[in-house]
């Protein structure tokens, strides 16, 4: 038999001024099951809480209702007070008679009637409360970082420096991501590889970081604290521990023509066994089996093997699957650049001297295909006039994407600046729609490109680029002067838009995190939880979330790391107990609940008898993933799933309490 106590708070005159609190108390006392009713000036004060605790003890209450302020104010206060007397804290219900009664109504009689109604509803609800225990999930204090660009490296280093083990997985043969491909970086013009290489080396040598390059995450299951991860380590054909990175193998490789270097964005060639760039980390080559003569011609060629001193080349190595258990994950898979050959009017792919911004980075880079001397791809001549075209693919819902890629305004200004520095007497023209230069030092940087370095900015888009007598004729508009403009250029650089890394949608599905229509991972809350994904224990960093520049990527890497260190500062992860639960006796295993669950929190559970024979299959709620939203409850045809704290019978009882 329920023994309910009702406590009506005056909140000074805040409630008592508009609601007849004594009348509420009197009405409460009449309800069957209510063994104690009391009104008090300030229930949240120490004396108020003490009297509450005393009555719980004296009357041996099984549940309490506070007719007081919003549960968002003091629900926790009263739950804690109740817990101190050994009452399950979820046996506390609040009737909100301040924010939703006394402060919004004026007629005392009618306000009192409403307050009585709300109190009655809560009494009926609390009578049906079931004890709820918060769920504690043990934490495996090890983190997985997916993607070894600047954001992932930063996250890995910060976590590792916090004393936690990290596994860093990178798809490419070397870590470094896009940043290591860049030349100098805006707005300070510090050389990218000079600031990036030490970080890469540090990540490689850190005792708390285990690095898997040329590897991909194949499968992930589990939940916060306990993710099971399968990593596929692709066969390098080189025994890493023995390799010295001396370079004899790639120097000996006969395949040095017609294989385009990915790192130099097709502007140079590489061998079949290769390191993507000289500062690669780890400095261990990869044998590209799709082009290697040994694999294509039945094992005849083994020049690299012959040249290798430590004999660490092994053609028989196979892909390896590595299994790890981690407590938290950072998804920092980065971005790709759009393929702009769909712009037939710009002739990318048709004209050799129409190149992408990233290709221009490689041309500018001292370690690039032209060793930092600006030469155009067609004939190796130094261009005197370059036209830069911004927003190619970005801000173009028809052919590209509607969003702004954020970094192009700045890197184009940098390109124009570096071009002016490297080729004296040269001229650059920049076609732009709007200049977006909003971080520290950015606007000054763009202005100085115009004012000091003489770049001419034209406000408008380019409509067509074609070749005429060795020049690229760029037909654009300057909407400020209202003119159509034609410029004869030696080279054209397209600022190509940013898109999510290919396959990031598949990874998101594997991780059970949400992503937007473009494929960028979405934050748990865009303002207040920017580092968290929609799934507990999985954090986000870098361009995988959307266009951002290097400082922002570094900040986001650190943010994800600090979230993980915070999580790991405890031994267990506590989940509020108001989550879904399945009645296994009535569940018919239709799994409609699974379909509506946005959190992948529902799995199949097999019930077996003692002999191990399968008795039935039922839905099972994973407490690490469930958030208690209740969508599954409505999806269930057999009424076998319910959310604790908001059970069907409680809600019906609330409605019934209002019966007229």
């Amino acid at each position: 038999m329920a023994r309910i106590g009702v406590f009506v708070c005056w909140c000074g005159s805040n409630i008592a001024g508009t609601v007849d609190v004594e009348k509420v108390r009197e009405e409460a006392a009449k309800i069957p099951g209510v063994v104690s009713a009391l009104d008090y000036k300030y229930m949240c004060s120490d004396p108020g809480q003490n009297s509450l605790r005393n009555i719980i003890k004296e009357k041996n209450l099984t549940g309490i209702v506070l007719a007081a302020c919003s549960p968002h104010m003091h629900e926790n206060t009263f739950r804690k007070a109740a817990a101190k007397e050994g009452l399950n804290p979820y046996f506390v219900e609040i009737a909100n008679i301040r924010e939703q009664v006394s402060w919004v109504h004026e007629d005392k009689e009618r306000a009192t009637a409403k307050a009585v109604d709300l109190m009655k509803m809560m009494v009926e609800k609390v009578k049906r409360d079931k004890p709820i225990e918060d769920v504690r999930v043990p934490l495996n204090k090890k983190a997985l970082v997916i993607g070894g660009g600047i954001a992932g490296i930063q996250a890995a280093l910060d976590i590792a420096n916090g004393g936690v083990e990290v596994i860093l997985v990178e798809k490419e043969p070397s870590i470094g991501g896009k940043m290591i491909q860049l030349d100098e970086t805006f707005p300070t013009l510090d050389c990218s590889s000079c600031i990036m290489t030490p970080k890469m080396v540090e990540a490689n040598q850190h005792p708390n970081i285990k690095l898997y390059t040329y590897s991909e995450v194949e499968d992930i299951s589990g939940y916060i604290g306990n993710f099971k991860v399968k990593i596929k380590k692709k066969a390098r054909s080189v025994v890493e521990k023995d390799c010295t990175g001396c370079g004899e193998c790639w120097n000996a490789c006969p395949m040095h023509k017609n294989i385009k270097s990915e790192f130099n964005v097709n502007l140079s060639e590489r061998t079949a066994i290769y390191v993507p760039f000289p500062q690669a980390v780890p400095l261990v080559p990869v044998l590209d089996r799709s082009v290697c003569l040994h694999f294509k011609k039945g094992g005849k060629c083994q020049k690299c093997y012959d040249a290798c001193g430590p004999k660490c080349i092994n053609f028989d190595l196979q892909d390896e699957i590595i299994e790890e258990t981690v407590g938290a994950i950072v998804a920092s898979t980065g971005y790709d650049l759009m393929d702009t050959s769909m712009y037939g009017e710009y002739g990318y792919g048709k004209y050799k001297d129409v190149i992408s911004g990233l290709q221009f980075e490689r041309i500018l880079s001292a370690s690039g295909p032209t060793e930092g001397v600006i030469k155009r791809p067609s004939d190796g001549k130094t261009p005197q006039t370059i036209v830069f075209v911004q927003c190619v693919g970005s801000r173009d819902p028809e052919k590209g994407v509607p969003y702004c890629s954020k970094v192009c305004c700045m890197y184009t200004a940098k390109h124009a600046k570096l071009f002016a520095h490297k080729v004296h007497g040269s001229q650059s023209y920049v076609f732009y729609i709007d200049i977006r230069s909003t971080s520290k030092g950015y606007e000054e940087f763009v202005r100085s490109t115009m004012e000091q370095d003489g770049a001419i900015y034209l406000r408008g888009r380019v409509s067509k680029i074609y070749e005429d007598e060795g020049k690229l004729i760029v037909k654009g508009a300057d909407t400020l002067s209202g003119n159509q403009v034609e410029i004869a250029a030696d080279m054209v650089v397209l600022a190509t838009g940013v898109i999510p890394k290919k396959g990031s949608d598949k990874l998101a599905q594997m991780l059970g995190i949400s992503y937007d229509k473009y494929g960028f991972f979405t934050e748990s809350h865009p303002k207040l939880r920017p580092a968290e994904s929609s799934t507990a224990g999985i954090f986000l960093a870098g361009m995988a979330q959307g266009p951002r520049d290097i400082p922002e990527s570094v900040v986001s890497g650190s943010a994800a790391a600090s979230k993980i260190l915070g999580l790991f500062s405890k031994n267990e992860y506590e989940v509020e107990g108001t989550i879904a639960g399945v009645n296994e006796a009535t569940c018919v295993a239709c799994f409609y609940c699974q379909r509506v669950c946005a959190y992948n929190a529902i799995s199949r559970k097999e019930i077996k008898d003692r002999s191990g024979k399968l008795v039935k299959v039922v839905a099972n709620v994973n407490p690490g993933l469930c958030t208690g939203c209740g969508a599954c409850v409505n999806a269930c045809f057999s009424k076998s799933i319910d959310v604790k704290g908001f059970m069907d019978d409680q809600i019906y009882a609330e409605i019934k309490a209002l019966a007229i």
Partner: protein
Amino acid sequence: MKTVINEQNRRNFAAQVEAMLHDKLAKCYQCGKCSAGCPVNFEMDYTPNQIIKMTELGMEDKVLNSKTIWLCVSCNTCSTRCPKGFEVTGIMDVLREIAEKKGIVSKVEKEVQMFHEVFLDNVKSNGRIFELELVGKYKLKTRHLFRDMFLAPKMLEKGKLKMHGEKIADLNQIAKIFKDFE
């Protein structure tokens, strides 16, 4: 170059154009790609993107009396390349139609306007185009009697200009179409 915006007129004009265009003027973000690629932009008094903005601002007189709307050859380069999928070519059609309905005779590009009118008259009376009659009427109307005249003898010789036009049988139906839709 000052324009005082009258909110009511602005709204009326923009709404009329949008309704005929089945597109929203606000879609245009003035990147200028239409103007950059327009083959006849060099002859225009306002660039296509300016026409769009001026329409949005309700600058009806300027737009309807512009050379631009008559110089547009409907080549669709602008609409094809527009990153926003805005009906740039379409808005020129709409503005011409409004000008025509309002009886505005283009001061600067009346030849183009007259050509369209003579062309449709020709269709109306024959059901098909009789080129010699079309050219003749157009030339009488514009008084450009001798322009292109040196082409005619050779065209006649080659058989390109027929001396007799064909009329279609069911001219009543053509008349009905013009009655219903003109």
